[in-house]
């Protein structure tokens, strides 16, 4: 057990996982998974790596971006405030176990009472955690009158405005609670969401969820910049975990920001961006590079230098036209265009099969973390939605915003602060 002082699942959580037969049964085998800190057969330290669930901040924000994502948004059922607290306790308990490489419940997938369904679904058995992080967030709708939380709604948790070129599908928008599960192993990430959904049955139900691959941002200096499905490096100028000053200024909410219980937390904006890659692939390299403002190969700004050279928006070419187009992605998203505003991007590529026209249902599941969406995300998105040359090849189909509370102490649970229980 990673945290002896945690009490374990509530009776209701156990019901969800293992049925009534388990309740009151004696302690079984721990159900720990294959590797927890140094498996002998591992060839990479990464696959065995774990990140702490408890702590000052939640993991999965400035944690080095893992390769895979399963993101889920839940609607809370018609339950009481106390039942919501119990759900968050249960989720915290199971999340702490799974991120430590253990089964969701005490018995694990292959143990426990023979006449009860296992308290873990089992597909992560024998798999290393692959740096699994599980990050919780609360949507604006959680702060209505159902749970007595209206007065606790963070001031920074705004309702996102309608952006031009939004083509949102209602079933892909919003949610009371989000869970972001990231791991280098897709099956481990799916396992986390699956078991957390199971624990919540009867208390919260899936509203929408999204699988992602090929992280499209690097969040530490050691990571190379990955590519999006347009084939370009994405997020070169992203905030990095090592930039403590930048992270404190742009990512972490502070107690003086207006909502004390959010101190050490952040705000997550997710946007499902469908890319019409078929038409994109028919555009010339010239146009593609003009749209991004960077070279496709190295990712250098068209004004010159290498990938990490600052773009020079004043640099002109033939006919005194700027080498980096004013409506290019790099220009419109650049902090200089927004009074220094920066965001921590942590998005993933997706391909959800294909649509009815035989086109890949592909794109970018954009995730950003910021201290104040109103002054960071919104102006950047507005500039992009209005003018980005890329808009011809993207459409925004999903959108959500969540308050990501600070990390919990090992004796508490995620979100305790908004119930004054921290």
């Amino acid at each position, binding site marked *: 057990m990673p945290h002896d002082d945690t009490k374990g699942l509530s009776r209701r959580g156990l019901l969800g996982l293992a049925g009534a037969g388990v309740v009151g049964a004696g302690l079984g085998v721990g159900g720990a998974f294959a590797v927890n800190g140094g498996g002998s057969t591992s060839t990479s330290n990464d696959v065995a790596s774990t990140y702490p669930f408890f702590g000052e901040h939640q993991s999965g924000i400035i944690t080095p971006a893992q390769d895979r994502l399963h993101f889920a948004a839940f609607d809370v059922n018609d339950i009481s405030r106390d039942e919501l607290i119990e759900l968050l306790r249960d989720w915290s308990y199971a999340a702490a176990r799974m991120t430590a490489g253990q089964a969701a419940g005490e018995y694990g997938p292959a143990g426990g009472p023979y006449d009860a369904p296992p308290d873990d679904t089992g597909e992560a058995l024998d798999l290393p955690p692959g740096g699994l992080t599980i990050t919780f967030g609360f949507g604006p709708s959680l702060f209505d009158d159902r749970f007595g939380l209206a007065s606790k709604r963070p001031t920074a948790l705004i309702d996102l*405005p*309608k*952006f*031009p*070129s*939004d*083509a949102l599908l209602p079933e892909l928008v919003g949610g009371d609670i989000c869970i972001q599960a990231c791991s280098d192993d897709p099956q481990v990430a799916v396992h986390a969401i699956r078991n957390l959904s199971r624990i919540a049955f009867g208390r919260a139900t899936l509203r929408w969820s999204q699988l992602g691959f090929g992280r499209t941002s690097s969040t530490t200096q050691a990571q190379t910049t990955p590519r999006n499905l347009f084939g370009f490096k994405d997020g070169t100028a992203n905030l990095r975990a090592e930039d403590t000053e930048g992270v404190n200024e742009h990512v972490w909410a502070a107690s003086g920001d207006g909502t004390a219980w959010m101190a050490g937390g952040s705000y997550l904006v997710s946007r499902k961006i469908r890319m*019409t890659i*078929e*038409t994109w692939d*028919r*555009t*010339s*390299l010239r*146009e593609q590079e003009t749209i991004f403002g960077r*070279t496709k*190969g*190295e990712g*250098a*700004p*068209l*004004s*010159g*230098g*290498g990938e990490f*050279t600052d773009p020079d928006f004043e*640099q*002109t*070419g*033939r006919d005194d036209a700027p*080498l980096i187009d004013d409506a290019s992605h790099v220009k419109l998203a650049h902090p200089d265009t927004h009074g220094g505003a920066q965001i921590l991007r942590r998005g993933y590529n997706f391909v959800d099969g294909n649509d*009815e*026209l*035989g*086109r890949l249902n592909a794109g970018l599941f954009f995730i950003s973390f910021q201290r104040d969406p109103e002054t960071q995300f919104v102006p950047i998105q*507005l500039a992009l*939605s*209005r003018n980005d040359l890329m808009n*011809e090849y993207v459409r925004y189909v999903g959108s959500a915003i969540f308050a990501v509370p600070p990390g919990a102490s090992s004796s508490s649970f995620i979100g305790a602060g908004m119930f004054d229980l921290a």
Partner: protein
Amino acid sequence: MTALSPRFGYAAAATVAALALTGCVPNNVGTTAASNTITVDSSATDCAVSSTEAPSGNLVFSVTNSGDQVTEFYLLADDGLRIVGEVENIGPGITRDLVVLAQPGEYFTVCKPGMVGEGIGSTPFTVTDSGADLSFSGDIAAQVEAANANYKSYVKDQIENLVVGTEDFAAAYIAGDDDTARALYAPTRVFWERVETVAESFGDLDPRMDLREADLEDGQEWTGWHAIEKDLWPEDAEAGFEAYDQSKREALASQLVADTNTLYANVQDLEFTLDQQTNGAIGLLDEVASGKVTGEEEFWSHTDLWDFQANIDGARVLYDGVRDILVEKDADLAATLDEEFEQLQVLLDAQREGDGFRLYTELSTSEIRAFSDQVNALAEPLSRLTAVLVL
């Protein structure tokens, strides 16, 4: 769908053959075949080429700017003046490829850091005869000039028709003659859609004239064709949608007429280049693929197939304008494009009804899918037109 399969199979095969015949050269820096790649180092003081001789055919000059000024690279004819190929706007530290189909002969390579003056490092460059058949008439300048002029006339003519049609449409709408306005809507918009890539190039006019409701942002006023479209076809409108009052009708209609006249004035002095035309053709196909095939363009009237046909008409005009040049440079690509245009037209003709087309909402899923597949079959080879013609 079964009946369509053989044709799609043929289309795919034709595309592959064309690709192979024209020897498509990958653009990835560092991955081009070494045999025909010449590296060029454009520094502050020199224009160093890795080789001064190459066999005729596709040549790749991979130009790296090692200086600190924006540079350009030219391949000049033996008179040292006529430009055979060029690559411009190479920022410091950036590498960019110039791909040319080079005939045997004598040339010069030269760099122009700072983009002024006569350039530096002028070096004789010899293209030897590889035996490859590259025969096409050397002087296509006159054909290109004619194509540019013809397209200019076409654009002006379409917008002129748009002005007249819009005035009639606006008059009927203001007069409350909704049946006439509805009848004029799609046939008038055809003039816009045929030259859509030109019409929408005026960044201030396009959102005023052709914005869809989905593209609005909070607080933005909605004007133009589609705002009126919703009022004329309110069947699919949200609950609580109210028909526009007379003053709103007059305001929308008169602004549309005024904006169309501004557009007319704007296109009078436009000049077109060859690559603008070829890119315009692919742009029109993209419009079809992203807006018309999906039924999103005419969300209220469902007259998407009128726009579809008009986009294709416009692309066809652009293609026909350069087809003679293409036949000389790449007859196989021309044959493929002829075939794919024709197949798409067959599909469109099958949906004709009276003077127009069936509504998008009357199409079956498989009919829509067939359109989408054929648009891809046409657009993919069409997207290679610029590189083939402008090389």
